[in-house]
């Protein structure tokens, strides 16, 4: 009724409050249009990292040798149904070193973090190259650390 009412009796349509200062509007609502809140950069446990797989959360984070990269921009590669989707939300170090995208080279969140001590020189070199690629392409947003009682 608002449009006709405003037309006949005067008045204007007010938009939702995007600031949240008045306690009304979109800012405090849990509507589908609400963008997901940014994640605070810092320390990640394998458990907290695992949800950023592009599916459970639209963001895609990947860890390489203890550093966590925000690969959301590379959704076509690491997102659901992408060729490297197994890496999303995980420590991808071993997979990149072995050039393997299979699940068996990726540790689950409740397993100890891979120490990568058994890698050969060639594999370490390959991993170095991959890490350099990630450093140049994606922002580093934190560090992957073991969760007491879960990964150590």
């Amino acid at each position, binding site marked *: *009724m*608002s*449009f*006709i009412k*405003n*037309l006949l009796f*005067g*008045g*204007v*349509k*007010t*938009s939702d*409050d*995007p*600031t*949240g*200062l*008045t306690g*009304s*509007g*979109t*800012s405090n609502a849990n509507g589908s*249009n*609400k*963008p*997901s809140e*940014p*994640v*605070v*950069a*810092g320390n990640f446990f394998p458990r907290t990292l695992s949800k950023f797989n592009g599916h459970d959360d639209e*963001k895609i984070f990947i860890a390489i040798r203890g550093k966590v990269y*925000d690969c*959301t*921009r590379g959704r076509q590669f690491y997102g659901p149904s992408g060729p490297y989707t197994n890496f999303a939300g995980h420590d991808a170090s071993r997979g990149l070193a072995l050039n393997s995208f299979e699940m068996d080279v990726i540790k689950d969140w409740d397993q100890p973090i891979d120490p990568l001590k058994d890698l050969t020189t060639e594999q370490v070199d390959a991993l170095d190259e991959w890490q350099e690629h990630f450093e140049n392409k994606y*922002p580093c*947003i934190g560090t992957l650390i073991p969760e007491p009682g879960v990964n150590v």
Partner: protein
Amino acid sequence: MSWSFVLQLLVTVLVIVLGANWLLSSFLLDFKRDLTAVALAQQSSIASVRNEHETAYYRSILVPTGFPLTTGLGLSLKYKIRNGNFGDVWNAIMEVSKGKNTIKLIRDEKSTSLGELNGMGKRIFQKLSTENYKNIGISNSVATKEGFTLTLASMMASIKTGSVPHFLPAVPRQQVKGLDVLVIDSWRSFKLLNGSEDWYKLIIVCDDPKRAPLFDSKDYRVVTWLELIDGYVNDSEFQYTPPDDNSDDKKLFAHVTSPWNGTNSFNQICLVSNIAEFIKGFPLGNELNSSERITISTKLASSSASLQIWGKLFAVLLHGGSASFINHTNLDCKSLQKTTLLFIETEELRKLMYSISKHNWLHKLYLSWATNLLSEGIFTKIAQIEPKSLEKLRCVYSADTVKDAEIISEFPEKIPQLKKTNQRTTPSTEDLNKIRAQLGSRVVLELYCPYAIMGAVAHTNFYDYRVFEKSVDDNVVCYGPLTTTLEGKMVETETNPLLNIETRQGMLCIRGFTIGKPVESDRLEKAMSLAEKFGGGEGWMPLIGVFGLWGQDGCLYTYNQ
């Protein structure tokens, strides 16, 4: 007439009204809206990660995260990409206009062709470049022919000899390093130099040479503007051969001194990025074109404040348009007859609206309909005042400045406390729609940080006519997303613990391509120390005292202070 008939009639009318409202709201209005509600609710691209004690990085949706901010003109030269500089811009302007387009300067009855202004500028440049002068201090308004041509000549020098224009708020009372040439408006000002004339190698007086007083010249030369332009010819060419790389980016474009004596330097990249940003801000179907005429208030053209006009002015001229300057005392509907774009301060816009508003009931009715339609996102001209005079006007840029530019320029270590008020100096969102309705033009509200940032910090969307509740308007002003040359974040400050970073509130920090660099070493040191404190030295500039928040729509909202 039976009761049942009346009841039937009432029900029928109610059904028709409800049906019409549903049809209008659900379908017809959607087709008429300039911008969808979804687009208005997502005006910024937001980084997915944020650091502790600060918000995520926000940038205009036109430059999404991962893409570069608008920088330079993106000129393609051979196989290299150049950003361009003033030389490229002026060369292109002269080629497009063939010298025929005009600029109407104040005190002139007629417009002056670009060919004539170019000829004067080149003549002045030619005479000044024979000596090895460094910077040229300009304290005149650039809206005058003298100020404009001298600025033009010094901009030409900025790419050819390295001498740059130095915009001054007034004639300096202290010696300014590197200032070899001083431009002053009259012989009266010359007499008031009071010995400071010895600081300069050359003094240019924009006054009649016949009225020159007697003076004893020792180390300095005095010349009038008329003597400098003597022998100029109408010239519609400006040749510039660019280098093969991007080395122009870092060349200085101008120095600007604020009234509180802080000087900032701006590179060529600031100018070209500012131009590109303005061009990019126009939506499809409403782009700049050759029939454009921009009218700029003389208040914005006073020497050191003129930093904000060049981007818009050159962008319009680049498209083959014309320009004019107008004194606020002469500003009325009739004076805007040929204007398509108007660039004035918000306060002047308020005064203009106050002076031209109509009070008859028919206009009030039209105004009510128009503001209703605008609040629905539909642009209309039904309530336009003086349609004949304002027929061509299509956008008004209303320039607002940050609350305290002085404190920003000082880079203090101690952050002030936010003192909120419920009184705003900027028109409310409803009032802005009334202005849109009465002028029959879009209104873009811009936020400027004078003397420190070239061009706007943020501006509302061309199509954003949203009206917020009074309680929102009483608290904050919506300035839309940041311009495409900048990205920003809010940071937590110790002095304002009530501003919650979790709800995107804090003090604004920006970085990008239109920010000036402090010239004085102590200010530069302070700026670097603050940048380190609030951004880990990643080039962030805190706008001290600019407190606000990011809306869920990605727009910048600043608190009324």
